[in-house]
């Protein structure tokens, strides 16, 4: 690949961001002109935490009291600082321009003003498979396929292509299927023929539970 990309890495926590940046570090054949880092702070977390009798289920399965708004804010500040530091280091190593911001909102906020590529970071499963799933539009994956291959190479895996759904029912079935798959990463190749609006992407991203790379526009 010779075209240098402008990429946005969007993460809800530093742990997610760290995995994403480590992945980019291994993708040495992906030329990057600019990397933007976005720490996405979902206000719904604070709202959910404020509900009475609310409990937090840790990633290890433990049940504990929900974090206070102050704890959430403190965590967000720490994650932002660490994300920024790692982003700067990666950009310097790749000789790319970089910028960082904190944004409040959900997936829609992440997609706003995004660069041509968006990496929705996710720490992934305990031991993910080495399968990179590519959802390609009918007209071809475009830049999606080489990017998926680059991801697969970085992860030591392979690419498995799934056709993009044509309707809502298809999207629902795709979400159910992706939710039951173990994927190292999901690549969604967007195009004007196969747009992926935020409301359609959100359940797919939630079901993937792995890093999602959005390419193209639409």
């Amino acid at each position, binding site marked *: 690949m010779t075209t240098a990309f402008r990429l946005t890495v969007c993460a809800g926590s530093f742990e997610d961001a760290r995995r994403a940046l480590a992945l980019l570090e291994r993708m040495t054949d992906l030329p990057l002109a600019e990397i933007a880092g976005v720490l996405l702070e979902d206000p719904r977390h604070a709202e959910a935490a404020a509900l009475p009798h609310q409990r937090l*289920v840790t990633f290890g399965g433990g049940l504990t009291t929900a974090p206070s708004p102050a704890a959430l804010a403190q965590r967000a500040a720490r994650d932002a600082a660490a994300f920024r530091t790692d982003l700067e280091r990666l950009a310097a190593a790749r000789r790319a321009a970089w910028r960082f911001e904190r944004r409040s909102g959900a997936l829609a906020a992440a997609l706003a003003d995004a660069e041509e590529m968006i990496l929705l970071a996710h720490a992934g499963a305990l031991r993910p498979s080495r399968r990179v799933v590519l959802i390609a539009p009918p007209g071809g994956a475009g830049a999606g396929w080489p990017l998926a291959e680059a991801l697969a190479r970085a992860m030591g895996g392979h690419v498995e292509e799934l056709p993009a759904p044509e309707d809502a029912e298809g999207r629902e079935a795709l979400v159910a299927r992706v939710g039951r798959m*173990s994927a190292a990463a999901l690549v969604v190749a967007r195009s004007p023929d196969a747009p992926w609006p935020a409301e359609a992407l959100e359940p797919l991203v939630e079901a993937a539970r792995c890093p999602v790379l959005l390419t193209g526009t639409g």
Partner: protein
Amino acid sequence: MTEQERPAAAGLPHDRLRRRYDPGALSFRTTAELDGLAELVGQDRALDAIRLAASIPHSDFNLFVLGPQGSGRHSAVRRLLSQRAEERAAPDDWAYVNNFDTPHKPVALRLPAGQAHPLRRAMQGLVDDLASDIPALFESDEYQTQRRAIDESYAERHESAMQAFAEKARAQNIALLRTPMGFMLSAVKDGELVKPDDYQKLPEDEREEIDRKIAALQEELSEVLREAPRIEKRHREEVEALNASMAERAVDARVAEVTAEFGHLEAIRRFLDAVRADIVENAELFLKAAAQANEGPFPGAVRRAHRESVFDRYAVNVMVGQEADATAPFVEEALPTYDRLVGRIEHVSQMGSLVTNFTMIRPGALHRANGGYLLLDARRVLSEPYAWDGLKRCLKSGEITITSLAERLSLMSTTSLEPDPIPLDIRVALVGERLMHALLVAFDPDFSQLFKLQADFEDAVDTGDEAVDAFARLVAGHVREAGLRPLTAEAVARLMEEAARLAGDTEKLSLRLEALSDLVREADHYAGDRGAEETGAEDIARAVDEAERRAGRLRDRMQEAIRRGTVLIDTEGGEVGQVNGLSVISLGGFAFGRPSRITARARMGTGKLVDIEREVELGGPLHSKGVMILSGYLTSNYALDAPFSLHASLVFEQSYGGVEGDSASSAELYALLSALSDLPIDQGFAVTGSVNQRGEVQAIGGVNEKIEGFFETCRARGLTGTQGVLIPESNVPHLMLRDEVVEAVRAERFRVIPVRTIDEGIEILTGVPAGARDADGHYPEDSVNGRVEARLRAFAEARRAYAARPGTQGAER
């Protein structure tokens, strides 16, 4: 009495002063006609002991070979033991292999002779083969497919559980929120999360319903997430099982090849089973090695995987490996340190620590000689720290246990090994001096238990036709082996005379082969100088003379001191209470005689015989004993009815070093008798011989050197024809004097006079009859004994009279 008036004492005829070997009696012209002698001459006792040691099976019949240096001990024992070794079958091979259960206790493998190195190579080949087989198997489509299927199956289990949960929650209008710290659940209404304010506005039963659903879903989510590690564990186990089954396919095939070659041996079969199990369990070692190899400079096909340290665990460390057609070993260890005898465990430094493993065990001489023979120099073994102790320990226990000396001395505190001991079946031969053997017998209780045989090499052999023939053949073999010129019969005869001289006995030939060999080689050189094809008697004689000349600097300086009068020695005239004694000085292998003036003074006293040498601690115990014997002689021969009232002193004049031995005791007695009798002793004589209390003159050592020493002194001043040396008659068979002395005696310019008793000697020295007691028990008045007795009586009388004087009682001491 003047010199002319003294009766001439008869001396030995010249033909009794040196045994001549007649070359005409030898059956050859040169030694080129003779076959060499296979064995040493005159050493049957020692050789039989060596042969017994070589063949007797009992483990405690080790051998100590003792005798003089240069007697051929080393070469004889080396030859006999190595010959015997060649007749015996090769012993088993031994190797150390890894103990997979307890790595610090390496396992000793006993293998039939010649199998250890092939097993080592087979294991190296096994590792090299598996280094390519295992990675290939794990890279195969078959494995990758199976592995991927397992991975995806387990991954999908967790993902499916999460997805099912998410769908279940969604169906109950509960949203699953993923936060940086974990998951939270929240109610959804009209597609939006219910905010806290909105929640409070809901009817109570609706709130309770929401709370109940969320609580149940939280518990369920908790269980789903806790299940993930269990799923992972099952996943890992299934992958390991897959890996093991794949590895087994590769390992079984290769191990079967090795088993086919060596599996008939139970110990090796057990070892191969352990190797197989370990490789299956640690197949990732081969995968990692392959990954590293791909980064290396050499392609996999060329790489020798067995050389990588990670595969040391499968190595075979050969301690003893016999070659084809080998026989029992004969080993001679020239530097018998503890490590080189018993073996050692090496260590390497890693990250500041000393580490080791079974591949760093190194064999010692005991390993190499196991099943055969080991030859050691006793002095060297005893000189090396802990070597003797280590050797004894192994012989007593019947096994070789390798322990680190540094660890034993607590000099090193680090992980070390406890290798299996190896059974020891060995015959050890120690070569050493007689004194060392005696000390070991006396002070080391283990020695007599472990070394029950001794091979005692003779210093000399009785001469006779058989011995002469054997000697000639011995010389013939030696010169042939050494590439020297053959010796003529005259040279052999001359050499035999020298051998007799070395033996110090006309009836014997010395077996100090090294000294004789030195002479022969030097003579060969002189023969070459004069362009001769054969070494002749003149070359032997020249070698003898040159050797003496080289070593004789001190002797010559001493004679010079006498000649110049720095050291006072009279060689003519008569002196009362003064006699020429003789001593021998030995420097390395060279000995020479020199005269010493011995003087005696006598007066009345309390019966004390003062040995001045003893008083100033220059006299050794043997010398002191000799002087004390003189008291016994005097008190038992003279004035028996009177108290012994003599005070006499004896001294070696101008002697400032130590004096030892009693060979001058007869000379001291002569001086004393001269002092008592007031009769002068002819200074043209020198005297040697020890004396007992009965007045019998006893044999001494170094008689040839002593005679030659005085002869040299007299010759330097000009022989008078009346000079000579008194020697014990029992020393006559030991006479092998140099030709110039023999020639002087033949020309009646010098004499060698044997005496049996003090009376005989004192007559010759004083020219006065010694005297014998008559029927009344009196000595003739003018005899030596008569005069001595009269003097002693006079002392006793004077002492009695002195004691009777008023005021003197009790004053004497």
